[in-house]
C-alpha cells in the first residue's frame, strides 16, 4: 500500500534512522512508487518535521547534519531514476557560498531542505567565484540562484554576481535568493535580489510560493 510506505519513510527519517530510511526507500521503489513521489510525500514531510524540531530546539546541528547524510544516501538511490522524469521537479536551484567565504553549514541546510522538497539542487560549495555562478546557471538552465554569505566583507559579491548575470542576459531567467547570518532584507532589496530568507525553512516556503506566484 503506497501511503503506508511513504509514511514510514517520513517517520524513519524524522527519527534519524539511517538504515531504516534507506531500506524503506528501496522498498518503495520495489513497490513501483515513482521516485518523485518518494521525495515529495516521503522524504519531504519527514524533513519538514526535522526542521520543526530544530526550530523547537529538540534537534541541533548535529541532527540536521545526520539528516543531510541520510538524505544523501536516499538521493543516491532516487537521483538516477529521477533524471528521466525531470519535468516533475520543482525546478533547478543553484546554490553556493560567495567568494572568500567558507561558511557552509547554513547553505548546506538550505540545500538539504530544497532537495528534500523536490527541487533539483546544484551545490557549488564554498568560496565560489562570481563567474562560476554565471557559468553553472547558464549550463544547467537554472530556475533559481541562491547565494550565501556570512561575512560583511564578502556580501558585496552577491551584488557583483547579480550584475554579471544581468550583463550576460540571464538575470531575468532566474529568481535570485540571498541569505546568511549577516544578510538582511534591506540589503537584498538594495542589490536587487528577488528573495531574502532568514533561515532554510523560510527559504523553502518562499521558493515554493514563488512557483505558484511567478516572479
Amino acid at each position, binding site marked *: 500500500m503506497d501511503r503506508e510506505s511513504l509514511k514510514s519513510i517520513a517517520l524513519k527519517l524524522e527519527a534519524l534512522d*539511517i538504515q531504516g530510511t534507506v531500506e524503506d526507500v528501496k522498498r518503495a521503489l520495489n513497490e513501483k512508487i515513482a521516485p518523485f513521489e518518494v521525495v515529495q510525500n516521503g522524504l519531504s514531510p519527514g524533513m519538514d518535521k526535522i526542521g520543526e524540531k530544530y526550530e523547537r530546539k529538540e534537534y541541533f*546541528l548535529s541532527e540536521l547534519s*545526520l539528516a543531510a547524510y541520510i538524505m544523501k544516501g536516499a538521493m543516491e538511490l532516487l537521483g538516477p531514476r529521477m533524471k528521466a522524469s525531470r519535468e516533475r521537479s520543482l525546478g533547478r536551484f543553484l546554490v553556493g557560498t560567495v567568494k*572568500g567565504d567558507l561558511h557552509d553549514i547554513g547553505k548546506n541546510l538550505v540545500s538539504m531542505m530544497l532537495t528534500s522538497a523536490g527541487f533539483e539542487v546544484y551545490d557549488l560549495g564554498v568560496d565560489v567565484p562570481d563567474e562560476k555562478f554565471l557559468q553553472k546557471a547558464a549550463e544547467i538552465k537554472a530556475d533559481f540562484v541562491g547565494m550565501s554569505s556570512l561575512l*560583511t566583507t564578502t556580501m558585496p559579491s552577491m551584488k557583483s554576481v547579480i550584475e554579471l548575470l544581468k550583463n550576460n542576459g540571464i538575470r531575468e531567467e532566474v529568481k535570485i535568493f540571498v541569505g546568511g547570518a549577516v544578510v538582511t532584507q534591506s540589503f537584498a532589496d538594495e542589490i536587487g535580489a528577488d528573495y531574502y530568507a532568514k533561515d532554510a525553512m523560510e527559504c523553502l516556503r518562499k521558493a515554493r510560493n514563488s512557483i505558484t506566484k511567478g516572479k
Partner: protein
Amino acid sequence: MDPLDRFLSAARMEEPDEVPVSLLTSARFFSHFYGIKVFQFFHDPKLMLDASLHTMRLFPEIVFFPGLWADYGIVVEPSAFGSRIFWPENYVPYVRGELLENPEDIMGLEPPDPKTDGLMPFVLESIQYMQKHAPKNTKYLYAVARGPFQVASYMRGHTEFLVDLTVRPDVARKLIDVCTETTIRWLRVQLEVIDNPIGIYVPDDNASFLSPGLFEKFGLPAYKRIFSEFDGLLKVYHNDADSTHILDLLAQCDFQVFNFSPATDIRTVKQGIGQKVCLMGNVDPVSVMLRGTPEKVEEDCKSCIQIGGPGGGYILSLGGGPSMETPKENVEAMVRAAKRYGRYPVLGG
C-alpha cells in the same frame, strides 16, 4: 582601578569599581585601524606588534583580550597537522576541511610537535619578539589554543565531523582525543615561552553544534581534561555560536570566564552558569556594533550591564570578535555606556 585590574577583578567574580570593557584582539580590527592589509599583519612580527599597540593606545579604556597575541588566525593548529593554508590579501587565512577527507586517515593520527610543526614555531618566535619589544606596561599575558571541536572540524570538514559523532563514533572519539591533546600541548609550550603568563584562552565555537547528548558524551570529558590541566591560571572560554542548549554542561567545565554569543540570552546565562563563572559579552558584533548607531550601541550596552552587571563577575564585551570596519564612534559609545551605567553598585534594570 586601571582597566586591566578591573578586568581581572571581574574575572575573580568580584565587583570592581565599574564594569570593565573588553574587545577580543583581532588581526582584522588591528590591521584596519593601523591602515595595513591583514596579510601584512601576519607577515611581519614588527607590524603585528605596532598595529596591536597602536590600536590599544587608541582605546586606552578597553582591555583587549587576550591582549598581545601572536595571532595567525584559525589555521595554526590545522597547519601543524599538515593542512593546506590559503592567504587572502586583506583577510584572515583559512583552511578547508580537506585534510582528513578520508575517515580511515584518522585512526593513525598523532598530535603534532608544537616546537617544529606547521606555523606553531613561527607563533613561538613572534611571541618572543613581541614580549622583547613591547613597552614595559604591555605584557604578553595569555597562551591561546583553539579547542578540539574547532580543530577537528577544520581538518575533517564541519558537516562530516558532526555526522561522524553518530555514524563512526570511534573515529570521532579518536579525532577529538588527538585534538584535545594538541590543545593541551600547544598551550603548555606557549606557557614555557611567555615570561609571566597569567592565563589561557580557548576559543571553540563548533562545540555548540552538538546536541546536549552528544556534547555530554564527547565535549564534557574533553573540556574537563583541558581546563583541569591549568589550575592556577585564569581560564577563558569563547564560543560565539548559540550555546543555550549546553549551558548547564559548560558550567561543569572548570573555566572562569565565558565569552558568549548574542544568540544566547544573557538573562538565562546570568541566572545559570553566570552564578559560577564570569560573563563576558554579548552585544551583537554585526547588527549593533558594526551597523548600529552610537545611540543603539549605548542602549544595548546599558541593557547588558543591567542584566550581567549586578553582583559583579561581568565584563562588557561583544558576543564575538569586533568586525574589521567597526566605527570608532561605536567603540567609544561602548566605553561611555560602561562609565554611565556600570558604576558599582549596579542595580538590575
